[in-house]
């Protein structure tokens, strides 16, 4: 029962979602809306599960004074402060919560992602050593796209053709077509996996045990 029950629930939920897609009946619309709300409520609790796990890990680190426990205090305190600011002042423009978002959360996020520019550059230097025709195509196209999107690229011209124009054409046609082929392949794979979940063939998400 500990396995068969959840598998039956997955089957019913999956089939119900497929059926509702093909019918505009108001009852099925309501079922769809409610099912989505259930999904969001469960997602909220799943987030809470992750939060509990994160906090438990950091609190354990602090209480046992493990290496880097001081940084764990930073995580715990910043989480508590951000949450209290939200509950106390709300999220309107100019509130402390909004300031924390604008001057701490957003800059840190943008900086962490911009840091990847440096690592991508060094990784590409190693990966792009054109050893064969595949790597050469990758290298040439990446350079065209990068140069085509910076001001200096517009100075590179051959008659009525320009590098930004070539980059634009690659993005619009060959790249789009290759991505489309991938997209169709991914979709077929995802549909097969979904069918396996609904039919109870794929059950690794249930974990081990009885």
């Amino acid at each position: 029962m500990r396995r068969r029950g959840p598998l039956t629930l997955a089957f019913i939920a999956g089939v119900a979602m497929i059926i509702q897609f093909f019918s505009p009946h108001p009852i099925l619309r309501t079922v769809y809306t409610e099912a989505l709300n259930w999904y969001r409520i469960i997602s909220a609790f799943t987030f809470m599960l992750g939060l509990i796990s994160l906090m438990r890990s950091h609190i354990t680190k602090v209480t046992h004074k493990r290496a880097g426990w001081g940084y764990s205090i930073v995580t715990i305190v910043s989480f508590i402060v951000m949450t209290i600011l939200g509950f106390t002042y709300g999220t309107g423009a100019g509130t402390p919560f909004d300031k924390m978002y604008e001057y701490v959360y957003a800059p840190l996020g943008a900086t962490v992602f911009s840091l990847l520019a440096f690592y991508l550059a060094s990784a590409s230097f190693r990966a792009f050593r054109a050893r064969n025709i595949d790597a050469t195509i990758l290298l040439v196209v990446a350079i065209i796209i990068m140069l085509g999107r910076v001001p200096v690229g517009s100075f590179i011209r051959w008659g009525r053709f320009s590098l930004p124009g070539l980059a634009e054409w690659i993005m619009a046609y060959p790249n789009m077509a290759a991505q489309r082929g991938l997209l169709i392949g991914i979709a077929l794979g995802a549909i097969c996996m979904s069918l396996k979940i609904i039919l109870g063939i794929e059950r690794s998400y249930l974990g081990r045990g009885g």
Partner: protein
Amino acid sequence: MAISHDPWVWAAALLTLAIYSFLYKDNPFYKFAEHLYIGVSVGYFLYFIIWQQIVVPLIYDPLKVLFISPFHTKELLIIPPLILSIMMLGRISPRHAWMSRWPMAYVMGMGAGLAIPAYFQTNIFKQIEGTIISIPPATIEIVSTYYLNKLLVLIIVTCVLLFFYFSREHKGALGRITILGRWFLMLGFGAAFGYTVMARVSLLIGRLDFLLHTWLGIH
């Protein structure tokens, strides 16, 4: 040059520099900023996404109505997902972890059920529709750049799809087509890589612009 006097701008600038200090090597400033980012983002997500957009409208408000009139039919629908959600928390204790299978099964089944028609519609039918070349009326010039490009798209999509066809050995004509498919895939990956690098570089420019203009006031 007019350096900013806003403490928030100073905080953002120092945190930006703390993150960039990682380019030299891992250090306490970077670790501080990294842990601060985790804490703040979890707090932000908890209040702004979970509390304001899910807990209040979908749990708190219906429960309030149920508290006033316990047999309000629509609001009774809150009970099953709440039970499933509480079962999800069973994962905290290894002894009760089995309980979380029920909400997991619901989420997986529902996601799978939603994915099948959605993938068919958007990722298969629409993509094939976009690939098919419609033959124009006789008055329109067939051999135009537009149709050549459309023909190229059709060829590339076919080659890429055949590259993933493993039911026959990639030999002979099929082998040659799949090599072309691999080259087209490399082209797509190269374009995606170049595009990603430029997106990261634009973020970097944004941060440098903040440091130089907003913080240091250099124009």
